């Protein structure tokens, strides 16, 4: 039967075509949840279980975050599937997350039969309407024969240019319909130019500015990882002798132990890289979009600097920051061209200015949180210990809140594509599903989810998926019994009025055990290392709840709306 069904141009149902398209597109694993309007596809899948792995999640939001985690650590798009109505609407948060963070996703939703569209039929919802603002592209397919072309287009759009999520909504009659199957990968679309021609003239001008600069400074974003320009970035920075700072999503694009690494940018980033943005003379921003968490008050951001901005998305250029040289280009191509054009240089005096501020941050902040000797455990020491024990080589998946900022600050990433977090949307509940998605994409790597007690409870049902598929992902809950980041803002900016941020939490270890996942709770400093070692030594999934200080604040901090010059160390 197999050889017959895989034979080209046999007549099959649209539902079967969906599965065969996924296989022909090279999808090996995808995530989903069945329901009425997608049942024909699930029925077809029954016969293909040895050719493609489907992971049954516990909630469609879990499916899409898992697909995001999968995409973020691999070179493939994440794929997920859901039924119509509530199944599809449960994907919306993930779509919004993926479009904010440029994550390539292909989502397939079942839809009621085309004759029922617009009649308020059972589980009919306008999925195209709802998903339009949060997709790079979407379409509805009402005929079986249109399925392969729609999916081929979807895969191409999701991955090309600036990646993003796409959604294909397939009516039930299209799934039942018969068609002659043939799949042609999409390699180009008329009027869509995802890879701009390298603008050599502008790059020459950029090189001239860089060669003449006294205090040049690189801001690296996720564009480096998306275009695979990690080595090109290192080569460029080393040749021109320029310090490199990273955005939240850029973390792990440049090794944290590299002598030119200046640190992490943004509201809770490092002191020197934030402050010196307002002192550099040439600012070279690559594959980043000047998010407000990075710029602080824009009218007081890098006003002294000549800005060179390289991004593949033309709409990002001059969107936030006045840019002398906006360069629409792929980061990898642009960086390798620039490296050829710049002079060998070093800027030791400029670089020493970072060192001085680093020392202040170390004394006022870092030493205190990494090496406390008394009081409750601090988030930072847990992350620091984890970073040491894994030699900075693990994939770290974080949720949203204080623990996310602490993990981003203190995990010393040495391998690229190792930081998976929800940046632009800041989606609590992201980490647990994204972590097992990442683990399925990179089974040989250690994948550790670091999650707050609040965020964990947003998608904890996905422990069921981890249990069912025996996915050996490691989970660290940093439990402060508070919605910590909100509490921090209440303390600092709302006169300590803790309005609904205190949490009465369940026994997390018992919950894990309910899913047959091993786990333990640690509260004492002297027990931390041994607990972390057990977590890392476990061959299967493992949950470690670390009870941390309840009212700890993350510093440094640029208060919301303030200039980056106003970054506070305490």
């Amino acid at each position: 039967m197999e050889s017959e069904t895989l034979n080209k141009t046999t007549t099959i149902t649209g539902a079967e075509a969906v599965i065969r398209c996924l296989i022909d597109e090279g999808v090996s694993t995808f995530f989903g949840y069945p329901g009425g309007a997608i049942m024909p596809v699930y029925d077809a899948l029954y016969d293909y279980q040895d050719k493609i792995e489907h992971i049954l999640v516990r909630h469609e939001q879990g499916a899409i975050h898992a697909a995001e985690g999968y995409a973020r650590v691999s070179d493939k798009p994440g794929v997920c599937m859901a039924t119509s109505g509530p199944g599809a609407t449960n994907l919306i948060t993930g779509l919004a997350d993926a479009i904010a963070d440029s994550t390539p996703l292909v989502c397939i939703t079942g839809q009621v039969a085309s004759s029922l569209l617009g009649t308020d039929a059972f589980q009919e919802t306008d999925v195209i309407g709802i998903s339009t603002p949060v997709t790079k592209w979407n379409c509805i397919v009402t005929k079986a024969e249109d399925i392969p072309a729609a999916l081929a287009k979807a895969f191409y759009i999701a991955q090309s240019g600036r990646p993003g999520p796409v959604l294909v909504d397939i009516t039930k009659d299209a799934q039942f319909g018969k068609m002659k199957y043939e799949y042609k990968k999409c390699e180009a679309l008329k009027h869509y130019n995802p890879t701009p021609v390298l603008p050599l003239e502008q790059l020459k001008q950029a090189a001239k500015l860089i060669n003449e600069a006294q205090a040049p400074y690189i801001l690296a974003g996720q564009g480096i990882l998306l275009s695979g320009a990690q080595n090109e970035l290192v080569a460029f920075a080393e040749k021109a002798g320029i310090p490199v700072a990273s955005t939240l999503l850029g973390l792990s694009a440049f090794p944290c132990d590299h002598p030119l690494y200046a640190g992490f940018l943004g509201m809770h980033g490092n002191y020197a890289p934030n402050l010196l943005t307002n002192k550099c003379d040439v600012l070279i921003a690559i594959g980043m979009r000047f998010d407000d968490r990075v710029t602080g008050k824009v009218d007081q951001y890098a006003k002294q600097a000549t800005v060179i901005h390289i991004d593949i998305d033309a709409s990002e250029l001059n969107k936030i920051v006045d840019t002398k040289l906006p360069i629409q280009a792929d980061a990898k191509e642009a960086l390798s061209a620039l490296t050829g054009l710049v002079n060998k240089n070093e800027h030791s005096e400029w670089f020493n200015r970072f060192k001085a501020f680093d020392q202040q941050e170390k004394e006022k902040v870092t030493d205190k949180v990494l090496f406390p000797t008394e009081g409750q455990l601090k988030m930072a020491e847990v992350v620091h210990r984890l970073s040491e024990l894994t030699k900075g080589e693990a994939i770290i998946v974080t949720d949203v809140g204080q623990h996310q900022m602490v993990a981003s600050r203190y995990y010393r990433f040495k391998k690229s594509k190792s930081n998976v977090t929800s940046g632009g949307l800041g989606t609590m509940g992201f980490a647990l599903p994204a972590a097992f998605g990442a683990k399925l994409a990179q089974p040989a790597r250690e994948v550790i989810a670091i999650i707050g007690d609040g965020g964990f409870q947003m998608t904890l049902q996905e422990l069921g998926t981890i249990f069912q598929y025996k996915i050996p992902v490691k989970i660290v809950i940093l439990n402060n019994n508070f919605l910590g980041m909100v509490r921090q803002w209440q303390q600092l900016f709302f006169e300590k009025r803790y309005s609904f941020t205190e949490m009465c939490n369940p026994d997390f270890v018992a919950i894990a055990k309910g899913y047959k996942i091993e786990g333990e709770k640690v509260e004492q400093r002297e027990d931390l290392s041994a607990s972390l070692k057990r977590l890392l030594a476990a061959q299967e999934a493992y949950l470690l709840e670390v009870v941390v200080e309840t009212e700890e604040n993350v510093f440094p901090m640029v208060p919301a709306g303030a200039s980056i010059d106003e970054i506070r160390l305490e």
Partner: protein
Amino acid sequence: MTNTYTIHVLGNNEPNLLPRIALVFNRRRVFIKNLNASELSDKSQYSYTLTVETTPVWAERIAKQLEKQIDVQSVNYFVHMPVTSDRPAKAELAYCA
């Protein structure tokens, strides 16, 4: 300072392009004063003409966001300028992009 702009979008004949275009404006609280959408004689193409009141900065941002839509082929926009004695009516529209 706001001006009146006329924005021309040439796109593929895809049913979901009209809402995508409208969303680009609505999300940025730029209200559409006039909208014309029509299928062209080449049935694979669609033309949209919109009139809005906005600032030069937002007009440019919106044009870039429109260009970014997969099914958009090209975007041109014009600013309406008042007709004065030294500027005859013919020069009323200034080409921007």
